[in-house]
């Protein structure tokens, strides 16, 4: 791209601008949306996550064609899978969060929506024990074969160092 092509770039849209579009796209699904730190954050139940992803990708006004990142988070009471989305052709971004129950960590895979979700899901699966249903190749990625436990869960401690934040706060003063 030369500087002369710069004019062809669409303006970066703010989260407030795409919020109604996302609301329209996800009509019929249960969700909650609020902008935070320059990004629209949408929370959605695990059951409808794939459907939401598929709609967000194919919606002609949104076209979230690029999966920036897929992260698992252990919130203590439950797990969460966060999809950071980006639209290369429309130049806007958002985060989609799917809450996953800790006792039954299951979530449908989005490999069918973005191929790039493949290794991210494998990583989240081994680190958090989330079962991504429909993933074609869900085996260990970074950990050695036969590794016990899911390291990024807060219940997993390393070398006796408390991983629970409260305890750590006490330790560090």
């Amino acid at each position, binding site marked *: *791209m*030369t*500087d002369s*092509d*710069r004019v062809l*770039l669409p303006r*970066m849209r703010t989260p407030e601008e795409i919020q109604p579009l996302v609301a329209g796209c996800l009509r019929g699904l249960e969700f909650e949306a609020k902008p*935070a*730190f320059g*990004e629209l*954050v949408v929370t959605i139940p695990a059951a409808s996550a794939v459907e939401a992803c598929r709609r967000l990708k194919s919606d002609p006004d949104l076209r979230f*064609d*690029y*999966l*920036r*990142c897929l*992260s*698992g*988070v*252990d919130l203590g009471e439950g797990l969460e899978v*966060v999809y*950071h989305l*980006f639209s*290369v052709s429309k*130049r806007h*971004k958002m*985060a989609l969060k799917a809450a996953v129950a800790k006792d039954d960590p299951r979530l449908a895979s989005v490999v069918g929506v*973005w*191929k*790039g*979700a*493949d*290794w*991210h899901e494998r990583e989240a699966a081994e*680190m958090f024990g989330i079962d991504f249903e429909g993933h074609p190749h869900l085996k*260990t*990625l*970074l*950990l*050695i074969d036969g590794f016990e436990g899911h*390291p*990024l869960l807060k219940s*997993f401690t*390393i070398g006796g*160092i408390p*991983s629970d*934040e409260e305890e*750590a*706060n006490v330790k*560090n003063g």
Partner: protein
Amino acid sequence: MSRTVETEFPTVDMMLNMGPQHPSTHGVFRIVVTVDGERIVDCEPYIGYLHRGVEKLCENYGYRQVIPLFDRLDYLSAFNSEHTLVMAVEKLMGIQVPERAEYVRVALNELNRIASHFLFYGTFGMEAGALTPFLYGFIARERIQQIFEAVGGGRLTHNFMRVGGIKYDVPADFKERVLELLPYLEQGLSDCVNLLSENEIFLARTRGISPMSAEDAIDFGLSGPVLRASGVAVDLRRYDPYSIYDRFEFEIPVGANGDTYDRYVIRVEEVNQSLRIIRQALEQMPDGPTIGNAPRVIRPPAGEVYVRTECPRGDFGVYLVSKGGPMPYRLKIRAPSFCNLMALRQMLQGTYVADSVMILGSLDIVLGEVDR
């Protein structure tokens, strides 16, 4: 009677294990390829040999202690990784970074990008079987490393960025030294280009090898030069601007075919553009403080940010979740090499064994950040 020959001499696909100790896997990457003669039928990448659990470590360290860990992810562009992390914390805490610190950061980021691309040039030449590019690339890179040594004391792991600015001001002669270095780098780059870029054998080895379409590249979440080679002009410095990159004039090279040659030539051209940015940054660099009003104990408010920057290898993202404590609650690192490597399986299919090392080389992975 070709059919009887086929039944009399059936061929069997061979499994070939490349790595983790293969010289062309850039460290400890392992890939099991199924080959029919020299042609690759299928492949299965294995990673994790360098997994150190950085994300888990981050949850147990204070924010200042996390910065050195980021040096050790993409150790060939440590400044860029550090920058991403401190930007995430700054964004969460709403800290304003002084102007001078921003300019120094940009200059160092771009120098690091050049150093990384020179190293890519060297190793890529090596994989093509040429021995001299390796030395040419390293000689040019060495001069940049000397600047880094003068700035932060380290050559690879700098630990120089701080939340709110930089550790301390750059040496008084920083500007002169870098300005002196730039023509040398230009000369080095043109030497490199003359040696390899137009070589007929090199062209035969790289042009048209494993092209990646723009749609596929986006779908795989590729980023950086690998994405731009496919013709997608997404450079976050321009497309999702951060820091002060919107103040500089530079162009974004994009490829036409997305083949191995494009992936190579884009990095070479990016060096030129980085040189432009450095020159502008040095010209505009003001005097002043180099660290903002960051508190002594960094305790970001509860919240979460996703920050990404354009590293030499692509889109380096940090997803930081804070619960208000002195340590990150969750820190997910989106490593560009990790995502680019995902596409390898598709890229390798139908190519030759000899091509496979070139294709892997053109992705320019660093296992430190793939395995984290």
